[in-house]
């Protein structure tokens, strides 16, 4: 390939000149920032895909373990897994403290709601 060997002398200047003169077409203003937005969106999508995959994997493994355990207990260890349903009976004394239980449960719900509200406020202020 004699032409490449003497490349230093022969640069194919005419061809190079024509190629250099061809439209280089500058990228439009804001191309990089628009591109970065797309990349960021893709990164979010990628993270969601990974999370979904991890969640699916954990779910599948958990299901497999549960099914395996049930199978093992029932068919290998011959454990009786039928649940005996005993009717729940409330004594007259227990009725008296139901009101108090409801009051405590209501308070807990209110406090959890307030906590969630302040957390979201803090999150929003951090984002902005």
């Amino acid at each position: 390939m004699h032409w490449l060997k003497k490349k230093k002398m022969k640069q194919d200047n005419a061809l190079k000149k024509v190629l250099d003169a061809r439209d280089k077409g500058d990228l439009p203003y804001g191309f990089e920032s628009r591109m970065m937005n797309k990349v960021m969106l893709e990164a979010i999508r990628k993270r969601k895909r990974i999370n979904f995959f991890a969640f699916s994997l954990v779910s599948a493994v958990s299901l497999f373990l549960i099914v395996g355990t049930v199978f093992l207990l029932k068919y290998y260890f011959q454990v009786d897994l039928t649940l005996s349903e005993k009717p729940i009976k409330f004594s007259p004394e227990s009725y008296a403290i139901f009101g108090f239980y409801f009051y405590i449960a209501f308070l807990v719900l209110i406090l959890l709601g307030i906590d969630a509200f302040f957390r979201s406020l803090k999150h929003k202020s951090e984002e902005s």
Partner: protein
Amino acid sequence: MEQQYELDYIKRILEGETVLFSTFLQRYSRSIHSMIIRIVPCREDAEELTQDTFLKAFKKLDTYKGDCSFSTWLYRIAYNTAISATRKKRIVYPALGENLINNVPDDAIDALLNKEDDEALFQKLEQTINLLNVEDRALITLYYSEEKSVSEVASILQLTPENVKVKLFRVRKKIYALVKKEEDETR
């Protein structure tokens, strides 16, 4: 940016610092776009293909192992993206007989392609380049315009350096044959 720095940046991007990808965009977007627009001479298509190139690069960033420079890897993605986009359009390029190409004398090619200040020739060359197929156009763009070495071009086009040399040699012959063919037709 040294390759080690680029590898560090890639590692950090993969760990979640997505914003660092802008460094690669700032550094390579113009050169990648400039190569694509020379292969695909439509501004809108070239811009879209540049976007596709960077998105593909970001998606496949974990497959970059550092066995070649990051720019070579990026150019390879850009080349493949541009080639597949043009293949979909099924453009038919003029065919030249093997004999016609093989019988071109080397000295005549050297003389033609090294002429200085011959505007008529430049115009003919411009028209001839448009008649070349995309692969050939990409090859001469990378070698002459982007000034990549034969081994870099080989890495981008996924060919051996010897193969690149043979192809370059043939493209020069093809250009010469096309210029002469056009001259004969205009006479």
